[in-house]
């Protein structure tokens, strides 16, 4: 019985991992490639969620909401990149402050537009219900959908970074900005594209997470925090890191929460992260600059 | 004469590539040794290894009788090795004077430097050094207002201030005008009178001007070693250089 439940737990753990990956991947490439700590990441997710809510109101569903959110938040990212971030790529710590300010503003503006109350975003009809795997609980289709989305997003990013011409430039810039610049790559443009791409992914995250979580102007920060945890643990600048970090945190947290309780679970995971940092400062798959 | 610096069988890989490959090198007390070699020969890496920036895969580095392989940079400094970077590297917002002051030889521990005052002899020494390199009348300007050449000299003067047994100078003349280069060469010769110097340089004019004993590196190994003329007449060296046309 207990064992069976833990297995079920392990399964739903996958969905939590998926959620973490979905939330973190946008930040991962922005942080990893453009070297920008985007503190407004959570708010980007929030905007994505609201987009989904609005699309829902207009009669669409999650599948429509995803591309829409990608475009909306992508454009938002474009504006912010052109307006603010592009001037401070060389000052990561200050980027952090500026984007935090952006976050505050986004929250307030959304509140002025949509009001303070919680918003509703439903899951598409097809994804209601679930299938029986083991245990007495069905495994919800929507969770499965989340896992698939996570996989697709990872795949998409992998493809863009490693298979496309743009990705080549990105990797060049990531390795050595100056050389890339000298070889005629428009590094500023690459940074911009990456920032927009990452923002778009954050938007998609918001769109797919909205149906199982609550949609409010203050929903962003926890996601941002989780994403940072994933990156710190998994390591920056390596997509495997996102997966690893997400997997460790997600599974550990769900299983531990089942054995003890949520808070103990969280604390243990936190402490684990700190220990890992102590051993491998740049994270499991961290990218080590030659210093 | 006892060798001050002794590198034996030094091998290192950086991100997969073998940079140094069983390199042997020994520098004697009060010697001015010039390291020559095409780009990617491993000159900068060698210096990085000696100063503890990278850990070697195998091989040992002995300095002044003790094995300093794998020590931390600050510990290695304490044994008397100072390094000049290829890109001038100093403290931008500090004044020229303070740059030198911070570099003065002395105790480096936190509570030792806490409230430690600048004594008259130290002050005079700083001024002497600044006048020696010709930065005295810019002593009060922040370092980031200096021109490139001046920055090179400032870093030189910082090294002098730290009064080491061995100076590692990594291309101290890069990006200088001819006249500046000449001046720098003179400075180096001046320094070499009282210190041991290991100079990385591939500007042949400089090498000719000051080069006594020369070591040529190629692909992480010692290609040739000896007086300037002898090395220059060495076929291998000619091949490596002329073949690749690496003169600047």
């Amino acid at each position, binding site marked *: 019985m207990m064992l069976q439940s833990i297995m079920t737990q392990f399964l739903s753990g996958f969905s939590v991992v998926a959620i973490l990956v979905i939330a973190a991947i946008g930040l991962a490439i922005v942080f990893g490639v453009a*070297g920008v*700590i985007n503190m407004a990441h959570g708010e980007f997710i929030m905007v994505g969620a609201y987009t989904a809510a609005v699309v829902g109101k207009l009669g669409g569903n999650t599948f429509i909401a995803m591309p829409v959110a990608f475009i909306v938040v992508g454009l938002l990212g474009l504006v912010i990149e052109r307006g*603010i971030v592009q001037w*401070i790529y060389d*000052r*990561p*710590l*200050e*980027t*952090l*402050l*500026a984007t*935090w*300010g*952006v976050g*505050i*503003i986004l929250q*307030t*503006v959304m*509140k*002025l537009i949509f009001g303070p109350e919680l918003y509703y975003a439903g899951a598409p009809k097809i994804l209601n219900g679930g299938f029986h795997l083991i245990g007495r609980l069905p495994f919800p289709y929507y969770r499965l959908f989340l896992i698939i989305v996570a996989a697709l997003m990872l795949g998409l990013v992998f493809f863009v970074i490693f298979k496309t011409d743009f990705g080549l430039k990105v990797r060049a810039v990531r390795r050595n900005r*100056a*050389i890339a610049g000298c070889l005629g790559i428009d590094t500023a443009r690459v940074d911009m594209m990456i920032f927009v791409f990452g923002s778009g992914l954050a938007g998609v995250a918001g769109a797919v997470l909205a149906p199982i979580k609550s949609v409010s102007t203050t929903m962003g920060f926890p996601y941002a925090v989780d994403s*940072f945890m994933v990156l*710190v643990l998994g390591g920056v600048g390596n997509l495997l890191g996102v997966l690893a970090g997400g997997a460790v945190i997600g599974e550990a947290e769900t299983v531990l929460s089942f054995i003890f309780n949520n*808070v103990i679970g969280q604390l243990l995971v936190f402490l684990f992260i*700190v220990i890992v*940092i102590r051993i491998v400062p740049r994270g499991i798959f961290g990218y080590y*600059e*030659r*210093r | 004469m006892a060798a001050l610096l002794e590198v034996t069988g030094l091998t290192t890989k950086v991100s997969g590539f073998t940079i140094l490959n069983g390199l042997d090198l020994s520098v004697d007390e009060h010697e001015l040794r010039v390291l020559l070699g095409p780009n990617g020969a491993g000159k900068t890496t060698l210096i990085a290894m000696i100063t503890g920036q990278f850990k070697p895969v195998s091989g040992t580095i002995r300095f002044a009788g003790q094995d300093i392989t794998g020590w931390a940079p*600050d510990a290695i*400094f*304490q044994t008397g090795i100072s*390094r000049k*970077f*290829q*890109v001038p*590297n*100093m*403290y*931008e917002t*500090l004044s020229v004077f*303070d740059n030198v002051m*911070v570099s003065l030889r002395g105790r*480096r*521990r936190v509570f030792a*430097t*806490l*409230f430690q005052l600048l004594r008259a002899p130290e002050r005079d020494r700083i*001024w002497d050094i600044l006048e020696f390199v010709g930065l*005295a009348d810019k002593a*009060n*300007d922040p370092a*980031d*207002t200096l*021109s490139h050449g001046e*920055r090179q000299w400032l870093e030189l003067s910082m090294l002098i201030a730290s009064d080491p047994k061995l100076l590692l100078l990594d291309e101290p003349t*890069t*990006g200088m005008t001819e006249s500046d280069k000449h001046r720098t060469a003179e400075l180096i010769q001046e320094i070499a009178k009282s210190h041991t110097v290991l100079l990385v340089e591939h500007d042949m004019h400089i090498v000719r001007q000051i080069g006594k004993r020369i070591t040529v590196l190629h692909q992480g190994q010692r290609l040739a070693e000896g007086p300037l003329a002898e090395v220059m007449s060495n076929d291998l060296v000619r091949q490596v250089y002329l073949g690749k046309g690496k003169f600047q």
Partner: protein
Amino acid sequence: MVRDKAGKPAGKPRRSIRRAPLFPFWAVIGGAALVASIGAYPYYSTNIYVLTLLGKFLCYAIFALSIDLIWGFTGILSLGQAVYFGLGAYMVALSLKLNYALTHPTRFGNKIPDFMEWNSLTQVPGFMTPLYSTPLAIAAALVVPTLLALLFGAITFKRHIYGVYCAVITLAESLILQNFIIEYQAYTGGFNGITDYSNYVGPSVLWFILGVTVLFVIVARVLTHSRVGTVLKSIRDNDLRAEFMGYNVANYRIFVFCVSAFMAAAAGGMYAAWVGIISFLNVGPIFSIEGVIWTAVGGRGTLIGPVIGTFLVKGAEAFLSDRLADWWQIIVGALFILVVLVMRDGIVGTVMEWVQQRRRGSYRQILADADRTAHDLQMDWRTEGAPRPGEEVR
């Protein structure tokens, strides 16, 4: 760094160093005016509300100062500074609450803090009993956070973690503590925090806090002005160079981190005693980031800056936020962006920069900058992966 106006006459005498006096005249005057204006308030008015605000702002100012010490002078941006502030505050608050409970029994007549009773504790846990004694409590409030800072510094800086990573990890640290406090509410008051104990508000206390503030500003000034200060600045500018000049960079970072933690803890302790309420918000990352913005607005790398910044931002918040409602949040957000994009050195810094610009021939500087950048670009691709000076530090 400020220097006296009297530039050296052309040529002779050489060998003259222009260096700021330990306490520049204008700074002393300005500081005195500020101190007087705050200290004189109780004489001027009996308005308790503004009085409480003043005391609170002073504690915040010290907090901002402690952030400035590590960020402005050493280039470590900590988003977990509130941890040390909060720990100090909780120690003092707990002590006060315990003693208050002795004279004010709970609804069940127990002589334990109410939040312990809610969580069905019947007596004060043993490890907390030392807090009954005020001197021990004060000692704990100052020492415990400092030791934690030492531990944390050893973990991060010894491993060459700084810059962005340090920021993110300190953020994690303060989140851990925050969750911890919320979860173990039997000992910490949890989500409700600790409130309803006898706090100390009044002119004499205000002057005490004011005195401590002045003391810390002076200490910070001496510290940053001493040789150690110069070393710290050089580490901020170029830690690589400093390391190859024989400085154990990690130790210096740990040292200054502990000093600032100590200041933050002291501020927290006084805060708890003054306002009479403390909650998990005081250890959370958001409070830390608030402190960072006060510092940035006032001017980091200057010592009076954080104080001024704190009073401006918090003062505006106290008197305008209720009139501006949502727009206040937008203003705060805009402040972050503004400070980063336009006014990097904050208010004080900008003013001082302007003064210096007028002294130093700015034209020559522009030429030098252009020359240098040209060279560095040329250099950059020739050096295999050598870090750009100051990388990740500013």
